């Protein structure tokens, strides 16, 4: 299995990886494979049943429950990254506002709106254009 992953790593190398961490991306399969072994005691936020339901819907029959956890973990990380980016956008927006009428220096209550989410998603290649109202 290690051989296989190494072969496939070379293909994966061409997409996504930027300059500095070529060494790491070359063997991206290995750490992942090792990480899989450590997944047994870790429970992701998204339950296994939900993830396996969606995977089964797509045709992915997971024989190993660790693979399901890996997928759910990957999904979680993806969403968290988007959320973090959106939060940064939101903070930038609120700090740009000159008014000091808010109780504390920074607006403690952050609400995720489409204004912040759209540029965050754009960075990940997802273009979202939603009309603000329905005609």
């Amino acid at each position, binding site marked *: 299995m290690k051989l296989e992953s190494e072969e496939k790593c070379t293909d*994966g190398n061409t997409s996504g990886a930027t300059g500095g961490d070529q060494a790491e991306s070359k063997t991206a*399969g290995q750490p*992942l494979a090792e*990480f899989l072994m450590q997944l047994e005691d870790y429970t992701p936020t998204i339950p296994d049943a939900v993830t396996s339901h969606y995977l089964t819907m797509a045709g*992915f*029959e997971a024989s190993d429950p660790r693979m399901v956890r890996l997928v759910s973990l990957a999904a979680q*990380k993806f969403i*968290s990254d988007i959320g973090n980016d959106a939060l940064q956008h939101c903070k930038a927006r609120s700090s740009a506002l000159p008014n000091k009428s808010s109780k504390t220096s920074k607006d403690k209550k952050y609400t995720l709106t489409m204004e912040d989410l759209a540029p965050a998603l754009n960075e990940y*290649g997802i273009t979202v254009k939603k009309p603000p109202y329905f005609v």
Partner: protein
Amino acid sequence: MAEHRTVLGVCLGALLTEAGFDAVDNIAYETMLEVLTSFMISTGNTARNYCELAGRVQPVVGDLVMTYADLGIDLRGIERYARRQQRLVLPALGVGSAPRPITILQAGSKLPHPSHIPEHLPAFPDPHAYIRTPTHKQPVTEYEALREKAAAQKRDIERALTKFVAKTGDTQSLFTTDDVNIFPLVACKPHPQPFLDALMPKDQVFDEEDEDLELQPPPKRVKRGLDLSQNTDKDSDGEDSSPPSSPPECPDSQSEVGKDILQAEKISSEDPIDNPYLQAVKKPHKYI
């Protein structure tokens, strides 16, 4: 179907809370939910394709690696992410039990499924569903009882019919006493030409009633005519007159009580056998 989506929504909420958001717009929430769902489905799809491309049926880690590389998803920091300190672990979602059907009105225990019926099919109804209450008395089917019943019925019918005919028709008595009713026998009706019955067999009997009416002494009806002399004339004529037509004409002209009484006396004196069913229709008295 929607349960998975709901659970996924809850997880999304937890993730966003972890990221630092306190609230989320409905549209943004739905968008993120779609992103999450689509991520998982496309991962599964692409992984399956890679797996099948390699000639396998069960996917392997390598397929997942290829999938993420293909989708352009960077998983370099995943280990660090997994070990993050502030991760929220949602309480394990318990499997909700299916709402049990209300057993308040249950009477008795239901029959278990026979072996050829799988368990996931609905259970049998309560045992009172099998009770059969006939709405009528079951008919007797025993041969002996039926024969006896038939014989008794036949006997009763015969007795009742003969009694009826004896009470309403002509009777003859074998005894010399005047009381006719102690043992009435149905009178024999001598036919003027008895051999005719043998020579002309009949299979339909409705002509008999008309015959009976004709044989009846017509004077009874014709008496309701205007004069006594007329009655005697018609007496001699006998059966040719048509009795039913005369009564409707007469009573209109005779509206006096006295004449009615006279007629009534006449009837009683001439004919001792008084058959109430063969009497002419009596119109109600008009009291002046």
